[in-house]
């Protein structure tokens, strides 16, 4: 009997010791995979708290939060989803913060004969290009930007039959990286990511050809650890974290350059 009690006590202590430092769960759009992993790592080292990261499609996270998922912070790939959460009372409006602006690039896998730097958007019309991978414009902000860029350069009608849609921007990248599509319109953050950096070439699409891809973060009302969530967002605002975001191709939030 006694050993049982001691065992239970030890078990309790170990659980308490394990959870003593704070822990938050962060849901983030997949274009943030590399930037936010690095930022969270630095935050953990600085504060001793633990950050659990979940990357995926903003729309999925939105639906999950709506249905009671307990994320502490939500980094969306757009402003719409966080705004909708605040309107529905599922996130605190004052915590909504535009953390950066994404950019899009034309991306060709290594070994492609296309000279993107020279051809620019005209590369899309090259006869060797049969498939062009973009994210699904129906729900992915990067997909919408890609379509807007195609429209403003008057190429959309000519290439629309060649478009293949990735579920999110990472899948669009997968389609080109594997060679199944010959060109892709991807997030700059992915083109700069370690996994893609050496596997192809990119050309940045002029930012005036598509509406800015503003991305916002918000703290859901149901966040289990509000205080730590705020501390994490505050850290993302520091110049140190902002430098990491910039390094991965996110422009600093408008008005705060």
């Amino acid at each position, binding site marked *: 009997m006694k050993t049982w009690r001691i065992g239970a006590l030890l078990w309790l202590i170990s659980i308490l010791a394990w959870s003593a430092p704070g822990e938050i769960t962060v849901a983030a759009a997949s274009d943030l995979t590399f930037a936010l992993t690095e930022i969270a790592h630095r935050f953990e080292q600085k504060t001793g708290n633990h950050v659990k990261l979940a990357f995926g499609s903003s729309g*999925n996270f939105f639906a999950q939060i709506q249905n009671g998922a307990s994320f502490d912070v939500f980094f969306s790939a757009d402003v719409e989803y966080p705004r909708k959460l605040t309107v529905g009372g599922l996130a605190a409006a004052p915590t909504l913060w535009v953390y950066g602006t994404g950019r899009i690039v034309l991306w060709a896998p290594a070994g492609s004969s296309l000279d993107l730097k020279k051809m620019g958007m005209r590369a899309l019309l090259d006869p060797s290009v049969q498939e062009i991978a973009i994210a699904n414009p129906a729900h992915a902000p990067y997909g919408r930007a890609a379509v807007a860029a195609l429209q403003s350069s008057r190429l959309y009608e000519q290439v629309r039959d060649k478009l293949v*849609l990735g579920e999110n921007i990472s899948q669009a990248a997968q389609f080109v990286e*594997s060679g*199944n599509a010959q060109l892709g319109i991807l997030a700059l953050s992915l083109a700069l990511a370690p996994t893609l950096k050496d596997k192809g070439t990119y050309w940045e699409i002029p930012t005036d050809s598509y509406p800015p891809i503003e991305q916002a973060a918000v703290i859901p009302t149901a966040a289990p650890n509000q205080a730590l969530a705020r501390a994490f967002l505050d850290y993302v605002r520091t110049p140190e974290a902002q430098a990491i975001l910039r390094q991965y191709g996110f422009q600093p939030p408008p008005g705060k350059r």
Partner: protein
Amino acid sequence: MSWQALALSVKLAAVVSAVLCMIGLPIAYWIAYSRWRWKFLVESVVALPLVLPPTVLGFYLLVAMGPRSPLGRLWLRAFGHTLSFTFEGLVVASLIYSLPFTVQPFAAAFRSVDQQLVQASATLGVSRLRTFVRVIVPLSYAGIITGLVLSFAHTLGEFGVVLMVGGNIPGVTRTVSIDIYDQVQSLNYVAANQTALLLLAVSFLTLSVVYAVNRKVWAL
């Protein structure tokens, strides 16, 4: 509701179950009656899609169909186009994905055929093929219908593999499950609900047919 996506899914499921019927019959016959020592290896390969996550299958298929794999290069040279992002590509992917749903009910049915009838047929000098067509198949009709309906229903509801190799092209690779997913992602819950409900009804109906046939509700 997207009728185009639904029609595409039905077409895909019909093509796939027709092809699976043709390749499933000989495979199932072999699995049911072969005495080869290493047969279990083939059985395992056939059953693999049951346990593999669609992402694994989809990922391998995407790589295999790509221009960097020998298979992908061969196809590209023959047809001038990779297999990914095409209807044919979805058919190939679904054939692999739904194979166990055809072969396993077929094989189980063949195995349960009274062997004395098969032997009687053989002693009467009837060839194996004829015995198969005239004796084994008619006695296995419930299993064959089960296999066909299951592969049809399974292909109809296929999601992961299609998502990985399809590229979501309207009318070509945007199947009904992908369409529902898109609707949910775009927060069109009403449209998603309508299509989902229809798919639910169709799935329930197909499964009811399977179980009714197995219970011999209709004398055939």
